[in-house]
């Protein structure tokens, strides 16, 4: 005897194992009245599902649109976050390049060639500067890939950049370059915002970093200007 419950599960193709399904299928093939029962059962249930759709009230539609608008304003898209991060990184690269470039008076005083090794710098300093340049170039390349990366790959890239950045910030500390270490560390939260979906916005962080970078660039420029007295770069 096939119950209505079994007929129903057979109809749904769900909740019966292969043996039970075969048993119901065989019975349906042999008993036309069972097939009629299944037909009536499904028709009744379809009737029960016939509640008419109600229109969405206008105020609810407006509420949804408003919520979406608010979200779109509060959370810049990944593309815009990536663009902002790229701009911030380029500013950092420029700043670091300016800070590492010797001032004109230094160039004039130095014997040629002007490499740090030739100027008497310790080998570890040369290796550090070479590594830092590679890190910055490598970070720029990785950041360029973020825009087209899949979410998993993007998360891995950002994680790798952050880890590498952390190591070079430590190296900058050891090389007695606190301002460079600070700039490198300031880049970390921007990178983290690219993968953290829960953050409301990274626009404020980016704006703050951009402001700090502009201040730093202005002071670096002033320090490198031969017309102004040489001063330490205080940030």
């Amino acid at each position, binding site marked *: 005897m096939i119950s209505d419950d079994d007929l129903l599960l057979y109809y749904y193709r769900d*909740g019966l194992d292969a043996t039970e399904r075969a048993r119901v299928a065989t019975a349906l093939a042999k008993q036309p009245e069972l097939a009629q029962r299944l037909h009536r059962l499904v028709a009744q249930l379809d009737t*029960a599902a016939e509640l008419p759709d109600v229109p969405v009230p206008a105020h609810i539609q407006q509420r949804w649109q408003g919520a979406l608008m608010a979200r779109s304003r509060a959370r810049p898209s990944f593309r815009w976050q990536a663009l902002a991060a790229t701009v911030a990184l380029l500013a950092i690269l420029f700043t670091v390049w300016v800070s590492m470039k010797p001032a004109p008076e230094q160039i004039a005083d130095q014997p040629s060639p002007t490499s740090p090794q030739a100027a008497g710098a310790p080998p570890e300093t040369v290796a550090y500067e070479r590594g830092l340049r590679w890190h910055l170039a490598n970070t720029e390349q990785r950041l360029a890939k973020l825009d087209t990366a899949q979410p998993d790959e993007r998360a891995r890239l950002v994680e790798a950049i952050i880890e590498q950045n952390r190591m070079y910030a430590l190296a900058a500390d050891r090389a007695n370059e606190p301002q460079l270490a600070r700039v490198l560390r300031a880049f970390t939260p921007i990178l983290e915002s690219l993968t953290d979906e829960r953050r409301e916005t990274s626009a404020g962080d980016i704006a703050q970093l951009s402001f700090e970078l502009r201040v730093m660039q202005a002071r670096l420029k002033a320090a490198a200007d031969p017309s102004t007295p040489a001063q330490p770069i205080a940030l």
Partner: protein
Amino acid sequence: MLTSLKSWVRPDTFHAVLNERSVRWYNACLRITRDADLAADAVQEALLKAWDRRDEFRGKSELDTWIHRIALNSAIDLMRRRRPQALEESLDTEYLMAANSPHGEYVQEALSRDLITAMQRLTTIERQTFVLKHIEGWRLEEIAESLQTNANNTKQALFRAVRKLRVDLHVWRGES
């Protein structure tokens, strides 16, 4: 693929899908919650989640399916969190108003009344199981997971719902 992904970043495209499909999402949530406010909240939750992940969808169909499913899960969660005993009068009024529209006919109105009565006799888990299985086509395991129960309880809830509905809707047999 990049072209299709780029198009989804545009808010106006997203809003167009919202305008086109929101009635379906809203009514699916209404059948689960029988509460207009909860249904609206559920759809809104799903919309915002979809907006945050909009770069991942590759077409209207995928976006529609995703929002529909998340909205239903949100509706179930909201029912569980906020209103274990959701008020149902407002919904019933809405359904009857829909049946009374210029397109509605006497038969439709009578059927709607009987359906409302029949649905009211179901417990929450019976109604949700019936809607998710018969109307939405979810697997029993999926329903069990969403309702935080097991597959056997889900199956039994479905059987009870079907029996009650067949008794209450006996005048609306398939032949009618």
